[in-house]
């Protein structure tokens, strides 16, 4: 077994190359700091099996941020047979410095000049052979994104990797990176010598598409409105295309139930039949019907993440975020949190200041993630007319922003930060169709794995609580769930949350999909007029909205709590995040519910 590491500066296409090379599905995005953790894949190269490891991007081997430290620790503890250095050809004028540093590590290396497809557009010409002579390692120009659709570079790279790997019998380990360091002056001299000899950069290419687009998208006045318009557009696309698909799928699942399942299970005892159909099938079916929404959402997310617009949003929002004690990167992570909070929280590793990281981690869980979106689509379409439903849903996004803002303002004193900020603004890009599908597919796979672990269990438990003991009417006060619900009523009644909804909330702690499946099970028990109808029958819109506010604000799921604890290395901090989010949820729902009732709704 041999071992290969993929190393390079951030946003140079390491993960793109890694995916093409190994068939893995590491996340790719046009943002410096997409990968913050190690990812390994095993494959056969010729005769040998090799572990390939994708690493976070680093600017310098001596860096200090958490993601750079991940790389240092890895290098100092892992013997390697080969390092694949990836750099962005367009930025070769500065990125060669890292190749020069890695060369000092004395581990066999290959330098891949990536994004060869973009280089001509920016007027960059490189002589790979000359660079190879200077660096004394194979140097190959290629495109990780387009592979063999762009020149022969990719195949040549794979050949070179196989060959070098074959020759290297024993792994080499760096004991101490600082021993291999060179001082900045010598580095600059060597860098200039290579650039002089092997690189030509024309100055005639400064008016690229990116420059022209930035004139509008980063405009001092138009920039922010355009950004929010773009976000609203994305929301509209997901909503207007997603809800009909979800309704259609849910209708299909109902049809199967009535036409096939119910006749088949008629001979079964009614408790068992109810458990299988009203519990398992309805609960899981309701959750599964949202797969098209998830797909659509992450199609859009893939485009946003790969466009380079995230970094622009950091530019546009930084002045505002600074006043909240945060910075542009916190905003970008909050945006990523709209997909899923967990990777967004890990993404804060690019921040050096602990205060800034903690405050960002406190704020990110308020981002309305796609799991919560499903709950809200479900409830708004059940309780509101089609005309107002999207507006109601959008208002929850506004609450999500407001909660983050209030939290930052309240806690910024506790988490001071004077971190300087410098961020790359990469050129605008567009993902390939394959990249878009892979991104969405990874999410759906993740979602299905979740369903196996937690959603089924959650739904089953909720159904049983609603139907045990067997000799009382289902979903009544005498059932187990009725008793639990009654016990927490003093806390939740002032919010208009009845005892059935309370059960959904309690189990929603595990994951928001459980809330969705739970609602289906709870309200499916008592009706024939369709689930939506049943909910609308038992709670009014004020209660529903209060419930949604609570669901939005209290801690999103167990995985978020786990990652908060792991990243902050502090149980105290994780507790603070949980307690604060529940408190904020309670206060907000209380104010809303009592306010609305006072006003006569």
């Amino acid at each position, binding site marked *: 077994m041999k071992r290969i590491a993929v190393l390079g500066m951030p946003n140079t296409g390491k993960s793109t190359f890694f995916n093409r090379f190994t068939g893995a599905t590491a996340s790719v995005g046009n943002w410096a700091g997409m990968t913050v953790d190690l990812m390994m894949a095993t494959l056969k190269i010729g005769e040998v099996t090799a572990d390939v490891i994708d690493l976070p991007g680093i600017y310098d081997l001596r860096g200090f941020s958490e993601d750079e430290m991940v790389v240092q620790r890895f290098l100092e503890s892992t013997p390697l047979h080969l390092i694949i250095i990836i750099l962005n050809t367009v930025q070769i004028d500065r990125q060669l410095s890292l190749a020069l540093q890695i060369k000092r590590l004395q581990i066999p290396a290959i330098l891949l000049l990536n994004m060869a497809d973009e280089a001509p557009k920016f007027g960059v010409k490189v002589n790979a052979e000359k660079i190879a002579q200077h660096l004394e390692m194979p140097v190959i120009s290629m495109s990780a994104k387009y592979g063999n659709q762009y020149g022969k570079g990719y195949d040549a790279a794979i050949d070179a990797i196989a060959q070098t790997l074959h020759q290297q019998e024993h792994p080499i380990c760096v004991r101490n990176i600082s021993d291999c360091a060179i001082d900045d002056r010598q580095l600059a001299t060597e860098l200039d010598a290579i650039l002089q000899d092997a690189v030509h950069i024309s100055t005639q290419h400064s008016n690229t598409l990116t*420059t022209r687009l930035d004139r509008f998208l980063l405009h001092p*006045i138009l*920039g922010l409105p355009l950004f929010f318009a773009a976000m609203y557009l994305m929301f509209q696309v997901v909503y207007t295309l997603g809800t009909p698909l979800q309704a259609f799928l849910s209708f299909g699942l109902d049809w199967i139930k009535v036409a096939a399942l119910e006749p088949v299970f008629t001979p079964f005892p009614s408790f068992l039949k109810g458990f299988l159909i009203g519990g398992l099938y309805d609960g899981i079916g309701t959750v599964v019907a949202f797969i098209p929404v998830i797909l659509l959402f992450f199609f859009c997310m893939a485009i946003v993440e790969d466009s380079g617009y995230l970094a622009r949003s950091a*530019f546009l929002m930084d002045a505002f975020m600074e006043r909240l004690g945060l910075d542009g990167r916190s905003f970008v992570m909050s945006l990523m949190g709209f997909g899923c909070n967990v990777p967004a929280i890990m993404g804060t590793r690019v921040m050096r200041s602990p205060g800034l990281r903690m405050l960002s981690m406190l704020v990110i869980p308020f981002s309305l993630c796609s799991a919560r979106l499903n709950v809200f689509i479900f409830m708004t379409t059940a309780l509101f007319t089609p005309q107002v439903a999207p507006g109601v849903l959008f208002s929850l996004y506004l609450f999500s922003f407001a909660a983050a803002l209030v939290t930052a303002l309240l806690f910024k004193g506790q988490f001071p930060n004077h971190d*300087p900020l410098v*961020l790359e603004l990469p050129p605008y890009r567009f993902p390939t169709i394959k990249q878009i599908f892979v991104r969405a597919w990874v999410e759906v796979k993740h979602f299905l794995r979740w369903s196996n672990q937690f959603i089924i269990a959650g739904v089953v438990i909720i159904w049983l609580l609603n139907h045990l003991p067997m000799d009382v009417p289902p979903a009544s006060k005498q059932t187990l769930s009725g008793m639990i619900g009654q016990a927490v009523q003093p806390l939740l009644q002032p919010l208009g949350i009845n005892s059935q909804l309370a059960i959904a909330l309690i189990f929603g702690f595990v994951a928001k999909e459980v809330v969705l499946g739970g609602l289906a099970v709870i309200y499916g028990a008592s009706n024939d007029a369709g689930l939506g109808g049943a909910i609308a029958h038992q709670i009014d819109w004020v209660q529903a909205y209060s419930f949604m506010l609570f669901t939005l604000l209290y801690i999103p799921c167990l995985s978020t709590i786990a990652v908060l604890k792991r990243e902050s290395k502090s149980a105290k901090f994780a507790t603070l995040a949980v307690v604060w989010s529940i408190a904020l949820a309670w206060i907000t729902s209380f104010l809303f519910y009592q306010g609305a009732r006072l006003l006569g709704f």
Partner: protein
Amino acid sequence: MSVSHSHLAALKPGHIAIIASLNLSPQFHQRLLALGFRQGRQVTMLRRSAFAGPIHVRIGTTEVMLRRRDAQNVNVTLVRR
């Protein structure tokens, strides 16, 4: 064409300057070095955001944003308005 000394945050959009010196904490200095900020290199100011927000500059073929407060510690010599 006049030659004058200034800092990066003071440049107006379209101005081109040469980096004279960097006056920063070691960690931040290292990051800027890796992004291409070295003595003698040319920077172009592209834009400044509203509300005293960050600036957007091009150095070589890399475009970066940085906060004005930090940019004030990058001393430059203006070469073209």
